[in-house]
């Protein structure tokens, strides 16, 4: 085992990934702290100095001190924000009994209402168990600790993203690559080439996993300690902001150990899952798909399912859920198992152990029992005995057949298209609220450039609205009592909404008046396509889907030639260089175009078929979130621009994957490198690290970066 472990660390690719992962983690940690906006939350130095001011104070005194400071107008605004933030953070400091009292009150209320609403037997058991867990802390003291530092250690999920990539790279280099090179074919013929070998291999990788975890989290602990300090390590875990509801009866020292222990188990299960899939999957492509489905499914379940949903168990009992170890510990939660509430942490530990054992055993079993040499099967298309005349074909056809059929790229694209179609959901609502309905009604009648005709219409509506307001005012004056006034008001509620809608239109008019080719149109649909507010997440998800598909489909185009040694033979032929390169390039372009069409074609269709295309010839800067320097572009031009950018981004990803695969000469390593370079920045951007919007090809892939 030690030899395998040593061999693993000697691999240059592994060392590079570990170092890169540590540097990335460090960068993300520093970035997340130093990019705080001082007018919204205290900067690092501000927080540190404020904490230093209250360090050692009794909680009540500290709260009073911070309150005074935050109300003192003579203090700079940013500093006051710092005092307010700190006051919020330490709001629970002091006696734990205050918090317990609040929970007892809520619990009592819920018991009173049980008679009026149907709460299940499980809900009652769950609530009772939660209270029982919290009561054990009665009499405890919640102290003041630098919660930001602890959040960097316990709640920084980006560290685990870096960790997973390192684990995948190590497993790929140490296990999958050797499998692809056919090395196991010989090893398996030896006395210790099966069971012993795989156990040592897996054990070495698990040891490596532990080392990576310790390195990453030691980094987090050191940075947090240096930046903010860790406070009194004897303080209870409830002292960390956001952890008041925890059921963990431990001080901060013990909590770190528990946290690392749980995290280690989660990392072990992750590594075992990767190894199990590598053993069972015959090809790297199947491995990639399985990993994408499992991780993607877990992510969707964790972030997509509500905590109150009846399927919330799927939200928490999955790999991504368990990797959020800090959240696991932050709030005491039960998972319902056969009607019995069981602590989430207990469920987690049992899950890790059971699944870990199953995966470990499964890996060993399948490795030992796998049949590597397949029999010479007849090709499925040549089952017939009819003698066909042999006819050759041209290079481009041959290459297309090899890639689309033999490398199963066409199958993958069809499955992908099927998944997109299956998940297609039409736009449910065209409106943000009721006033939006009226706004759309108005703007549809005057959509397009703001002309004299539309101005006249709008003027007429304005007069109508003013007349209505006057009427409402008069009727309210006539009403004798407040009650009658409110009846009058409620009678005109709908008209009030209409007036609000009209006001939105008026705001738009004043906004577009200074824009050449400025126009009026119902922009809700275009907002979704141009990155307004939360649309950035959708942009990132679509870009990530596209990048992952491009990597999966094109990574094998060159790497398979090198893996099989065929590249050497092909290059000795007359068309095995330039023409072959050209054929692969054009096929790659075709693949990228189809993937792009599936993703963005369906997205554009979904939005534009619901909202229409009215006003798309007007200036895109008519929408307030678009900067003025783009006022010369119409909406349709802007959509075309971001479409071209995204397509170019996908094309460059394809070209880069070609380059990486000709260097890496291995499918699995090409995939690992490509995911690290192109998919990881998008994942980090999605997880909230906004700077990654501008990294590498992300500006092109996301499109809406203006």
């Amino acid at each position, binding site marked *: 085992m030690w030899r395998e472990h040593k061999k693993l660390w000697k691999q240059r690719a592994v060392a590079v990934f570990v170092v890169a992962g540590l540097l990335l983690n460090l960068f993300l940690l520093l970035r997340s702290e130093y990019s705080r906006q001082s007018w919204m939350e205290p900067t690092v130095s501000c927080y540190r100095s404020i904490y230093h001011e209250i360090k050692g104070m009794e909680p009540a005194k500290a709260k009073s001190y911070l309150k005074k400071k935050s109300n003192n107008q003579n203090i700079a605004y940013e500093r006051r924000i710092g005092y307010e933030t700190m006051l919020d953070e330490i709001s629970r400091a002091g006696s734990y009994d205050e918090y317990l009292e609040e929970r007892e009150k809520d619990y009592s209320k819920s018991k009173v209402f049980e008679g009026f609403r149907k709460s299940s037997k499980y809900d009652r058991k769950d609530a009772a168990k939660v209270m029982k867990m919290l009561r054990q802390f009665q009499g405890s003291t919640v102290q003041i600790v630098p919660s930001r530092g602890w959040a960097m250690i316990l709640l920084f999920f980006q560290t685990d993203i870096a960790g997973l990539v390192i684990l995948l790279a190590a497993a790929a280099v140490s296990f999958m690559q050797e499998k692809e090179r056919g090395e196991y074919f010989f090893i398996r013929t030896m006395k210790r080439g099966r069971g012993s070998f795989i156990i040592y291999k897996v054990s070495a990788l698990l040891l490596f996993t532990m080392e990576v975890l310790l390195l990453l989290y030691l980094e987090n602990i050191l940075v947090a300690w240096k930046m903010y300090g860790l406070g009194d390590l004897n303080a209870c875990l409830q002292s960390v902001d956001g952890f008041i509801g925890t059921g963990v009866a431990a001080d901060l020292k013990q909590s770190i150990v528990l946290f690392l222990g749980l995290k280690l188990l989660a990392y072990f299960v992750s590594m075992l899952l990767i190894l199990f899939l590598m053993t069972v999957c015959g090809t790297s492509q199947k491995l990639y798909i399985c990993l994408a489905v499992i991780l993607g499914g877990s992510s969707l379940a964790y972030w997509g399912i509500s905590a109150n949903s009846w399927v919330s168990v799927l939200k928490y009992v999955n790999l991504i859920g368990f990797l959020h170890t800090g959240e696991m510990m932050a709030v005491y939660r039960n998972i319902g198992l056969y009607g019995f509430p069981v602590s989430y942490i207990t469920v987690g530990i049992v899950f890790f152990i059971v699944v870990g054992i199953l995966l470990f055993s499964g890996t060993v079993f399948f490795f030992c029992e796998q049949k590597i040499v397949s029999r010479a*099967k007849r090709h499925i298309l040549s089952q017939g005995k009819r003698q066909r005349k042999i006819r050759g074909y041209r290079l481009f056809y041959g*290459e297309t057949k090899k890639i689309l059929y033999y490398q199963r790229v066409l199958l993958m694209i069809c499955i992908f298209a099927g998944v997109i179609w299956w998940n297609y959901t039409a736009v449910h609502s065209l409106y943000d609220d009721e006033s939006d309905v009226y706004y759309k009604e108005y703007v549809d009648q005057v959509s397009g450039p703001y002309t004299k005709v539309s101005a006249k219409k709008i003027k007429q509506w304005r007069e109508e609205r003013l007349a209505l307001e006057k009427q409402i005012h008069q009727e309210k004056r006539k009403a004798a009592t407040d009650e009658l006034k409110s009846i009058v008001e409620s009678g005109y509620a709908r008209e009030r909404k209409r007036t609000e809608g009209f006001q939105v239109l008026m705001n738009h008019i004043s906004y577009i008046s200074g824009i050449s080719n400025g126009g009026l149109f119902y922009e809700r649909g275009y907002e979704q396509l141009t990155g307004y507010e939360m649309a950035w997440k959708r942009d990132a998800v679509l870009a990530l889907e596209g990048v992952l598909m491009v990597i999966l489909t094109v990574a094998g185009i060159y790497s398979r030639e090198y893996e099989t040694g065929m590249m050497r033979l092909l290059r*000795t032929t007359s*068309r095995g260089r330039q023409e072959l390169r050209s054929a692969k390039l054009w096929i790659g372009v075709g693949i990228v175009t189809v993937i792009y069409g599936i993703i963005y074609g369906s997205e554009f269709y979904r939005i534009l078929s619901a909202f229409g295309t009215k006003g798309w010839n007007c200036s895109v800067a008519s929408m307030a979130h678009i900067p003025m320097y783009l006022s010369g572009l119409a909406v349709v031009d802007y959509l075309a621009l971001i479409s071209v950018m995204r397509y170019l981004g996908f094309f460059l990803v394809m070209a880069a994957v070609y380059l990486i695969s000709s260097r890496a000469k291995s499918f699995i390593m090409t995939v690992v490198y490509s995911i690290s370079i192109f998919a990881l920045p998008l994942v980090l951007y999605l997880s909230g690290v906004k700077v990654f919007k501008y990294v590498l090809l992300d500006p092109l892939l996301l499109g809406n970066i203006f």
Partner: protein
Amino acid sequence: MEITISHLTKRFGDKTALDDVSLVLDSGVHALLGPNGAGKSTLINILTDSIVRDQGEVLCNDHEITKLGAKYRELLGYMPQQQRLYENYTAEEFLKYMAAVKGIAPATAGKQIAELLQVVNLWEVRRKKVGGFSGGMKQRVLLAQALLGNPRLLILDEPTAGLDPSERINIRNYIAAVAQKMIVLFATHVVSDIECIAKDVILIRDGRICQKGTPVELIESIQGKVGELPCDLDSLEKLQERYCTGNVYQRREGLRVRIVGDELPEGCLPVRDSSPLYCRR
């Protein structure tokens, strides 16, 4: 057609893989013999334009092959030693693909593929996946693809490895037949493969050509320097330490060892054989 190699040199770091090698190859079979690390693969890689040489030139009909580019590769048929192919392809499909990469017209390719599959005895399994073939069958697929397009220069790297004796004879005879119209460079360790069909034998060692000639010339050159000596296991070890020995044979009367050297030990019976070429010091 003629291939002229002049003062070819290639270094990999400190190691000189080829050192001032000069050759002229014309129609017929040219055998390339040498121990591992002699420079055979390097020479083949340079001839197939897979690696860049440090010095020297390789001319095809007086034209530098790197300048000819695709035109030179049109004349080239190469059978590598590696056996990893597209596992999912059938033999027929693989040859169709290779024909396409060689730029052979579809109709012509069909005829050639059919003929070659018969020659290499793979017609019956042409629709089975190459991934399930034995090593020898994969060798035959590789040989067939090398012969596609009627190459004028055929480079075969261990073409008979993994083949059974009757297949070896078939392949050997086929190569001998086609070699009249092309240049065949046959790299092998198995002397018996080439001694009957080779026009000349090129002995290479440590990147240099140590000897070149027809098989008969080479055998004549070591007349009186090869003998067989009866021995037993105890004396065999001492003989191996003292002399350059070849094969050890088991006979009814006991062991016999082949010895090569300028001076043969007493009791050694002279023989006339080609195999001692390999253990020439």
